[in-house]
């Protein structure tokens, strides 16, 4: 009987465990997480903050599920060392033997150097349920909150806080909001919308350099521009970095993220695999190596790793970024190479009122899109990207609503039958 151990029980770790169970009915699967909770939806923490979902609703599976499927899950178990010779991992006083190990350690917050923000009781990150609970406890209608970072996580924190707090200020070093998913033009209109809907004040091209405190508590922050903002709650959401400390300590190859073979998901040790935010992905659209810190990618990689660990042939089936998110009802859906630059790429934009659609092409192939309030049937675009479809074979306006009728008769028939697209 095989012993499988997985470190980290979130998107990648759970998908990995489930895939192993699908392909190996008898193996022992141990899923270790340092968090105190059963696997939950990390992206839902902002919805929890604003009170839209309960803790119970955030659980990815029912508590009884793990026993039923024979996945031994251990919470509060931080793995501190891997012994590659003995093939064991250590968590607290316990050690676990593995035949196959998968590292799904995810992301950790990146905190840029700032004066006087360390170990202040009202300076928090926004990455897991524990810190969200702490944040929720501290935020009230008199709170003046400052969020550092206008990326996805910072903006989600700001949105959640804006429903509770007296004021929310967001400082972002870049000149635009959501710089990783929006271009200059669209980010301007998104910023305006969020300012009006959420009463959020932006300080773009600026950041916090220093905090002023009294008795272990931050009272105000000073920005690079010299501005000083009163601050009862500081949220550090500049960005995330792959959590690789365990892999590094074990001597595995790491370069920003854990290096894996994209076909087998193996690290530099052939019995250790890695998946999700902690691993380096190869973007199928341009061959570049990058960290794709998104849920779907983590699930696909986790599944592929699980299959490989169980001796199967599962693969990710191509890795690329796809994301959907909403702010105050404004829907943003993005996929592929959003920031593609260079002569080989071209784009087409259509804009009207609150909606915006930008398609990015490489020759006759769609390689990316940004859709704001225009995501109808977006999955058809995603599918064109994934299949590298020559768009000149389609009938109909590519900037219109994607439709089955774009495809030729044969494709339509097979899709109506539900054959895999």
């Amino acid at each position, binding site marked *: 009987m095989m012993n499988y151990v997985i470190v980290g029980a979130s998107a990648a770790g759970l998908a990995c465990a489930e895939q192993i169970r699908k392909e190996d009915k008898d193996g022992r699967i141990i899923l270790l997480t340092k968090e105190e909770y059963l696997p939950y939806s990390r992206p839902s923490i902002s919805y929890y903050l604003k009170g839209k979902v309960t803790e119970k*609703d*955030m*659980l990815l599976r029912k508590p009884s599920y793990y026993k039923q499927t024979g996945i031994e899950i251990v919470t509060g178990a931080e793995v501190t060392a891997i012994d590659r010779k003995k093939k064991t991992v250590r968590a607290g006083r316990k050690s676990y033997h593995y035949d196959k190990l998968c590292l799904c350690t995810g992301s950790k917050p990146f905190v840029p150097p700032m004066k006087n923000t360390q170990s202040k009781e009202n300076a928090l990150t926004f990455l897991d349920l524990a810190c969200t609970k702490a944040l929720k406890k501290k935020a009230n209608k008199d709170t003046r909150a400052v969020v550092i970072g206008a990326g996805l996580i910072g903006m989600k924190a700001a949105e959640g806080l804006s429903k509770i707090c007296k004021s929310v200020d967001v400082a972002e070093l870049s000149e635009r909001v959501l710089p990783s998913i929006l271009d200059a033009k669209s980010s301007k209109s998104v910023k305006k919308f969020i300012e009006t809907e959420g009463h959020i004040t932006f300080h773009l091209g600026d950041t916090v350099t220093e905090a002023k405190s009294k008795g272990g508590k931050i009272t105000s922050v000073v920005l690079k521009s010299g501005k000083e903002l009163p601050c009862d709650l500081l949220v550090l959401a500049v960005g995330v970095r792959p959590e690789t400390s365990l892999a590094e300590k074990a001597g595995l190859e790491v370069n920003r993220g854990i290096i894996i073979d994209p076909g087998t998901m193996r690290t530099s040790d052939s019995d250790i695999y890695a998946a999700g935010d902690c691993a380096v992905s190869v973007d199928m659209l341009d061959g570049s190596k990058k960290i794709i810190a998104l849920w*779907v990618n983590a699930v696909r990689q986790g*599944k592929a790793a699980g299959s490989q660990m169980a001796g199967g042939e599962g693969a990710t089936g191509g890795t690329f970024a796809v994301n959907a998110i*909403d702010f105050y009802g404004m*829907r943003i859906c993005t996929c592929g190479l959003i920031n593609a630059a260079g002569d080989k790429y071209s784009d087409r934009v259509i804009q009207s009122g609150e909606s915006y659609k930008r398609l990015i092409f490489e020759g006759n192939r769609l390689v990316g899109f940004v859709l704001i309030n225009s995501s109808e049937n977006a*999955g058809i675009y995603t599918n064109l990207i994934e299949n590298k479809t020559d768009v000149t074979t389609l009938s109909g306006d590519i900037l219109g609503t994607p439709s089955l009728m774009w495809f030729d008769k044969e494709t339509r028939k097979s*899709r*109506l039958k539900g054959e895999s697209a």
Partner: protein
Amino acid sequence: MKRVYAKEELCLNCRLCEVYCKTAHSQSKDIIKANKYEDPEPVSRVTVCGDKMLSAAVNCRHCDNPKCVEACITGAMQKDKKTGIVRVDEEKCIGCMTCLAVCPFGCIKTGKFAVKCDLCCTEDEPACVKNCPNRALVYADFGGKG
């Protein structure tokens, strides 16, 4: 499992399937109220794509390996092990629409939650099939898991 299959050669673009789907998924279950007055407006889960020349009623395929389930960031979208029906748990769904971003058939609609075909779970035949006057929709088992 049994699924809804559309025949484009029989479709007349009358869109009655949409009307009846809307009714079946409304509060009142009344065809007039559902299609004219109800607020929030019920959403049809089936969509007739195309024009008078060529059209077909596109509906969730209840895929064997559903991309929407794989992509769901909350665990709200699940494929029922027994029935094979792919359904949204509205308590868990946060309406992010990641599922919509990956469904290759364009079968998820935006609402407060992800809105999609549930094969009228409790009925022996889904409303769209029952009410298609041209038999352009059939409910049949051509294999597949579930």
